[in-house]
């Protein structure tokens, strides 16, 4: 798995690619923690190029949602159908602290509405 971070219109965006499992999830956790520790209330995670995820990766999403709890949300961008199905099975898709978007513009737009500059 590869992971990179940047800000889009001020909103933190972490992009992951490849397979997120128990052996590779730590670097994703570290990338997301940077923004949690910076006090960001909304963090976006681009899953477009993520081909596989299991509880190793889902635990990272849960920890991030937990870390943002009450303050904001984690926005998953463009997960593929299989990944999306797993997020539904574990209940993340109906969690108030977690949102799914079809693309980055939709996600940054929602983030902008949630926290107007």
């Amino acid at each position, binding site marked *: 798995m590869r992971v990179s971070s940047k800000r889009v219109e001020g909103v933190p965006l972490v992009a992951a690619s490849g*397979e997120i499992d128990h052996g590779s999830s730590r670097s994703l956790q570290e990338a997301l923690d940077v923004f949690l520790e910076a006090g960001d209330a909304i963090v976006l995670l681009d899953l477009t190029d993520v081909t*596989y995820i*299991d*509880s190793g990766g*889902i635990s990272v999403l849960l920890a991030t949602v937990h870390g943002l709890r009450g303050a904001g949300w984690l926005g998953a961008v463009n997960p593929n159908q299989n990944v999306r199905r797993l997020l539904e099975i574990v209940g993340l898709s109906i969690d108030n602290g977690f949102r799914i978007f079809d693309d980055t513009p939709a996600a940054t737009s929602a983030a902008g509405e949630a926290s107007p500059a």
Partner: protein
Amino acid sequence: MNPTAKPRCRTISVTPEPSRLAEIRRFVEEVGLEASLEPERIFDLKVAVSEACANAMEHSGGQHAPLVVCASIYTDRVVFEISDGGDFRVPGALRGSARDDRGLGLPLMVALMDEVRIAKTRGGGTNVTLSLYV
């Protein structure tokens, strides 16, 4: 069970380290393609087998006994057996307390597979059998 009724079992044996999970998933993919499964079902098998293996790796306790995954293709189902050489543990029991994944491994296996069976091996390790009906 009559052993002669079993098809030849394809196996992969790895050291119990999370870095080997990707290799196990490639093995699952090969078996899934051989069984002509849909991509979604192959994805489900990869997750379920990975969860079973990750559980086994977590309770291997630093032992070097290999983790063995055995795949069998039947006319009506595909079966993966995951056996470890560690001491028997209820899968998922350690996970919820040690990490924030709330012991998701076993629920995911149950959600994605048609049958999940957990047993102790004769050597005291854990044997997880995952079946997907085709």
